C-alpha cells in the first residue's frame, strides 16, 4: 500500500533502528554476558576440578536434575571481616584519590578553558599526551623515580637536603601518587568541556551586581560546573576502586585494595566462586553512584526541556 517515498522512509527507519540497536548489542555481548557468567560462578561451590566450580545446571543419569545455587560465598564475604575492611579501604583510597584529582584538576581545567583557543589546544594535547605511552610503562617509570636509589632520592642526597633515602615506594603514598597521576586526565577533560562552554558574560554580570572575583567564582562558576565535577569524579572513582596494577606495582604488602584480593582469590587460592562473589559485590557498590548520577542528569535534562 505504501508508495515508493514511504518505502524509502521505512528503509531509513530500519537502518536507524539497527544503528540504535548496536550499542545495546555491544553492552549485551561485552558487559551483560560476562557479568552473567561471573554471577553464575559466584553462586557455585568450589571444587578441585577443571573448571574449579560446580555447574549451575545439574545433569544426572535421567537427564536434567535441577539447578544448584549456593549463597555460601556471599555469606562468607560478610562473615569474614577481612573483606569488609578491604572494601572500605578501597573505597577510602579511591575517594581520597578522587578528591586529590579534583583539587588538582579543577584549577588546571579552569586555566586551560580560559586561555585563547590556540593555546587551549596545545595544553589539552599536553594533558592527553601521556596516553600515547603504555600505562604499565608509566607506572614502572614511577618506580625508577621513587626508589630508595631512584632519581628523586639521589638528587635530594646529592644536594644535601637529606642524608638517608626517604621511603617513598611500596606504601600508600606511592599508590595515591600513582592513581592521581594516572587518572588526572579523566578529571580534567570533563571539567574542561564544562568550563569551556560557560558564558563569560555571567561573570561580568556577577561583578556588575556587586560580586568580587572570588565571590563570582563561588556563586556562578562553581555551581554551573557541578555536572563536570560529578562526571570527572565518577570517571576517576569507579576505576580507582577496582584498581589492581597500581597497588600491585607501587603499593606495599600492607596496601589492601580489593583488586589485589580479587587477584589472590583467582590465581593463588584458585577459589573462583569467592573471587566472583567479590567482584559482584564490588559491581553493586559501584552501581549506586552511577545510578545516582544518571538520576541527577535526567532531572537536569527534564528541567531543560
Amino acid at each position, binding site marked *: 500500500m505504501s508508495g515508493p517515498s514511504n518505502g524509502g522512509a521505512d528503509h531509513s527507519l530500519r537502518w536507524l533502528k539497527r544503528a540504535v540497536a548496536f550499542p545495546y548489542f555491544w553492552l549485551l555481548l561485552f558487559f551483560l554476558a560476562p557479568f552473567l557468567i561471573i554471577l553464575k560462578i559466584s553462586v557455585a561451590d568450589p571444587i578441585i576440578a577443571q573448571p574449579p566450580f560446580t555447574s549451575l545446571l545439574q545433569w544426572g543419569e535421567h537427564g536434567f536434575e535441577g539447578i544448584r545455587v549456593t549463597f555460601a560465598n556471599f555469606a562468607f564475604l560478610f562473615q569474614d571481616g577481612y573483606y569488609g575492611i578491604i572494601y572500605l579501604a578501597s573505597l577510602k583510597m579511591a575517594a581520597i584519590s578522587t578528591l586529590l584529582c579534583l583539587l588538582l584538576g579543577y584549577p588546571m581545567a579552569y586555566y586551560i578553558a580560559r586561555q585563547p583557543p590556540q593555546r587551549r589546544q596545545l595544553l589539552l594535547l599536553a594533558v592527553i599526551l601521556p596516553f600515547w605511552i603504555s600505562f604499565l610503562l608509566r607506572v614502572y617509570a614511577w618506580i625508577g623515580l621513587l626508589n630508595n636509589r631512584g632519581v628523586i632520592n639521589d638528587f635530594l642526597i646529592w644536594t644535601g637536603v637529606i642524608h638517608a633515602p626517604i621511603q617513598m615506594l611500596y606504601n600508600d603514598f606511592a599508590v595515591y601518587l600513582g592513581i592521581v597521576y594516572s587518572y588526572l586526565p579523566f578529571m580534567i577533560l570533563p571539567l574542561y568541556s564544562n568550563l569551556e562552554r560557560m558564558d563569560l558574560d*555571567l561573570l561580568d*554580570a556577577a*561583578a*556588575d*551586581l556587586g*560580586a568580587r572575583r572570588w565571590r563570582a567564582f563561588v556563586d*556562578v562558576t562553581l*555551581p554551573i560546573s557541578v555536572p563536570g565535577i560529578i562526571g570527572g569524579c565518577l570517571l576517576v572513582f569507579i576505576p580507582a576502586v577496582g584498581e589492581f596494577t597500581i597497588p600491585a606495582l607501587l603499593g606495599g604488602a600492607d596496601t589492601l585494595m580489593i583488586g589485589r584480593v580479587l587477584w589472590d582469590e583467582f590465581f593463588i587460592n584458585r577459589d573462583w566462586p569467592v573471587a566472583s562473589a567479590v567482584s559482584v559485590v564490588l559491581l553493586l557498590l559501584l552501581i549506586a553512584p552511577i545510578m545516582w548520577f544518571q538520576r541527577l542528569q535526567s532531572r537536569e535534562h527534564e528541567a*531543560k526541556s
Partner: protein
Amino acid sequence: MSEPTALPLIQIRSVTKTFDGVTAVNDVSLDILRGELFAILGSSGCGKTTLLRMLAGFENPTSGRIVIDGVDMTDVPPYERPVNLMFQSYALFPHMTVQQNVAYGLKKERVPEAQIRERVAEMLALVKLGPLAGRKPDKLSGGEKQRVALARALVKRPKLLLLDEPLAALDRKLREHTQFELANLQYQLGTTFVVVTHDQDEAMTLASRIAVMHAGRIAQVGTPGEVYEYPANRYVAGFVGNINLIEGRVAGTANGRLTLHSDALEADLAVACEDPPGPGSELCVAVRPEKITISREAPSNGDRNVVKGVVRDLGYFGDQSLYRVRTRTGAIVQVSAQNLRRSAKLTVEWDDEVFLSWEVGSTILLRS
C-alpha cells in the same frame, strides 16, 4: 524624581581606549544629565560597546576620566560602582530562579533578608513577572528573560542603568511593545538610562538625546529631532534615516544664501548659509525624501528648489509611496509621499515626467 541640576550625572572627559594599538574609543567627551534616557548610536565596531563597558567598569580607559555623580570612577571596579548593566545576552544565572537572579545583587549588598524579599517582589511586579518568580531562566520566553534582566539590573536602584542593545534579541512585534514599556519604566523610576544600540529607530523612539558614534569618535550629540533634521556631517546624515546627498559647486552668494550648481541634477539650488565659502568651492547638500514634493505640473509657489526627472521605480505601501526619480544625467532622487487622499489611482505613475521641489529651508548644508 530628581530635578535636573546643573551638574551632569556623568561626565566623560577625553576618554581614549586602545586595544593592542587599535583605538576603539578616540578622545570622547560627553555629558549625560540626571534622569535622561540617553542613546549611544552607531554601527558595529564604532566603539559604542567599549564606551559602555568603560562606564560599567569592565574596561579602564587608556587615558581620560569618567566622573559619575561628582565622583571620579575611572579606576573603580564594576562591583563598587553605582551602575548596573543589562547585558545584550541578558546573562541570567542559569542555576538560579527568577527570584534568586533578581535578589543576587541585593544579597551582595548585604541588604537584610526581609527587605530583599520585599524589593524583589516589588520589582517583579513592576516588570509583570510576579507569577514566574520560581522559574529557571531556561523556562522563560525571550521577552520574559529580557524583563528579568531588567529587573535584576534595576533592583539595586543604580544611579545609572546601562542597556546593551536591549531589544536586539526580541522579535519585531515584541520589540515595539517593549520599547514603549522601557521608556515608561524610565519615566516612572527617573533613573538615568544609557542605551547602546545600532538601531536608529530604537534610538529615535526611546531616547531624549542621542550621541551618534563613528570610528571611535562622537559624530554628533543632540535630540532625535536635531540629529535627524540638522545632521552635523555627512556620516550622521547618511546613518540616520534616508537622505539624498547632492554634490555641487558654489555658483554665487547673496543675502545669506548661496547658489549651488549640481551637474548631476542639472539644477541651481538655493541653500541658506551664514558664512558662504567663495564661488567655485565644492560643497555637499542633502534633502530628506519626505521633504520633497512630487508633481506632474511645475510648482507655482516660489522659494523652492526644483529638479526635473522621470519616475523609474514606485513602491506603494498604502500609507505612503516611495518614488525613485531619475534625472537626465542618470542621478537618482528618492521621494516619499504620504497618500493623504483616498484614491485607488495614483496621481504619479511609472515613466511620468515629474517636477521635484522642496523648500529652500529644507536643504541641509553638510560641511564635512
